[in-house]
């Protein structure tokens, strides 16, 4: 039984293909991590599921969430799903809330928008603020965003996301902008309250603590996917391997391992395997594109590690 299933999702901006043929699924209650460097297409994948792609960017393929199609559906239908069946918490809490509106009104808005009456929404707002562990919910509800810290604002965003008890929560780097001390509390909270979770991050340690399964994206493609433990202990794709090496703590005095080169800009990735211009193992075979192979643990690489 799948909650979300995505098949052949591609995102393009005019001629430029930014995300290519991404397929994955999330089971009810499952927590899936989506990792990769900036520019790998993680955020676009998430935004296309929300129907929130920027102007001039469009998605194709199929994505079905609990029987509702998410792609190629008129905005009117998607509006009814956003904030109710699927919710999203964004990276930057400092700018995500309307500066001119009281916090409480911004939380209850998402409920009245989906049919709850005002009084009920207002009462539930206080419960929600309490649930995301904000102290003095009544006081917070009356505050304006600028009176709250970044961590508090991100909790408010989480309260908004959870308000209508969605089936799927998408978090796009929700702790990247927060202080390290606040990060951990926020992650614990998300892990505790999330129904099913699609968690986007470039921080491997965070994925390891949060998710059961992980998708690795590079150059707009999923290059490896599988159970978190397996992918992290036995990466098959050379990109995943490099990513893990780069994030490992190394003994004092040794060189930090890095992936050579840098992420090309969109449209400048090589033909065939997108990673081959940075891969130490690349050969002539890599000029043809490898498919994602393997059952539970899939990888798209011609000479996988073991």
């Amino acid at each position, binding site marked *: 039984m799948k909650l979300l299933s995505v098949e052949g999702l591609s995102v393009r901006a005019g001629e430029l293909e930014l995300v290519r043929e991404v397929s994955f699924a999330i089971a009810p209650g499952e927590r899936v991590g989506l990792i990769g460097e900036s520019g790998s297409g993680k955020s676009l994948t998430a935004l296309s599921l*929300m129907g*929130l792609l920027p*102007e*001039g960017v469009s998605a194709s393929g199929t994505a079905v969430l609990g029987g509702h199609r998410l792609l190629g559906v008129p*905005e*009117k239908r998607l*509006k*009814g*799903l*956003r*904030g*109710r069946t699927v*919710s*999203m918490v*964004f990276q*930057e809490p400092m*700018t*995500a*809330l*309307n*500066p*001119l*509106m009281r916090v409480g009104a911004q939380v209850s*808005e*998402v409920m009245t*928008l*989906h049919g709850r009456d005002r009084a009920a929404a207002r009462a539930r707002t206080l419960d929600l603020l309490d649930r995301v562990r904000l102290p003095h919910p009544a006081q917070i509800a009356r505050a*304006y965003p*600028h009176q709250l810290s970044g961590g508090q604002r991100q909790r408010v*965003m989480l309260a*908004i996301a959870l308000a209508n008890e969605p089936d799927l929560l998408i978090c796009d780097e929700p702790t990247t902008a927060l202080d390290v001390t606040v990060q951990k509390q926020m992650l614990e909270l998300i892990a505790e309250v999330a129904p099913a979770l699609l968690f986007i991050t470039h921080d491997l340690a965070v994925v390891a603590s949060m998710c059961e399964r992980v998708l690795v994206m590079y150059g707009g493609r999923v290059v490896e996917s599988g159970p978190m433990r397996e992918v992290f202990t036995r990466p098959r794709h050379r990109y995943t391997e490099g990513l893990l090496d780069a994030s490992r703590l190394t003994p004092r005095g040794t060189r930090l391992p890095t992936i050579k080169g840098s992420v090309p800009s969109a449209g400048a990735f090589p033909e065939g395997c997108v990673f081959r211009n940075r891969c130490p193992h690349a050969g002539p075979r890599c000029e043809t594109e490898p498919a994602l192979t393997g059952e539970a643990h899939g990888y798209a690489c011609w000479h996988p590690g073991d």
Partner: protein
Amino acid sequence: MIVYLVKRLAVLLASTAVAGVVVFAFMALLPGDPAEIALGVNATPEAVAQLRQQYGTDRPPVTQFLDWFGGLVTGDFGTSYVTSSPIGPQIGERLAVTAVLVTGGMVIALLVAVPAGTFAAVHHRNPLGAAISAVSQVGIAIPAFLAGILLVFVFAVKAQALPSGGYVPMAEDPAQWLLSLLLPWLSLGLVQGAVLTRYVRSSVLDVMREDYLRTARAKGRGRMGALWRHGLRNASIPVVTVLGLQLATLLIGAVVVERVFVIPGLGDLLLNGVAGRDLLLVQGVVMVLVVAVLLINFVVDLAYAVLDPRLRGAP
């Protein structure tokens, strides 16, 4: 909020006092003695001295200033050296006309700019949005008096639908009053509206890129719904700044438009005063215009605080 209000009020009062000094000093520095002007070139020194004493211009400048400035507070602008009539009531009467003219112009400007600017922003990627930008660009290039002359040509001379000038007081005939003001309102309002359209457009465009609009859409609002509920009030903050500046421009622009349409407003009074060397009258009108601009700025500051909660706690 109270602290903010008190501070703004203090700024208003202080700048009014400074403005009073500057206006008075400028007038005092101008060559030409009112008594000599009144009596002509053949006057005897005794007669001039006597008239000076009568006008009070023989007193030390500081005393004169305090007397004049103190009078302003009670609405007493003094008595004209030229016409011997009190200046205050004249200014009051003319100010009422100019205020109606400027307010009407501003209302038209807003009625044009807010919908047009918002539409141009929302449709900035298609030809219709670009067309609005182009039209507003043309509008900016046209000065108000030229717009007035063009409007007179079209509506008064060609179509003969509206009077080309003149002013009918409202108490006399409300319908004629409205007709007599229509073209002046349009010539002020359309030009200012064109300028304002561009500000509204860029302000709405900026807001459309804001994260909180994406949040609103993530909650389940459509593009327009999010903009309406969360965008427009945010977009209005920079527009209010421009609006304040424009209102001041409009007040000055009214001086010219009053000439074109023969409307007995403050601008008309000012020009008459200058032509008749009625120094005290000019001094009074200039002071009123300065205070009006200061008041507009004060109201703009208050509007910020009403619109933006972040400013309420700030100094």
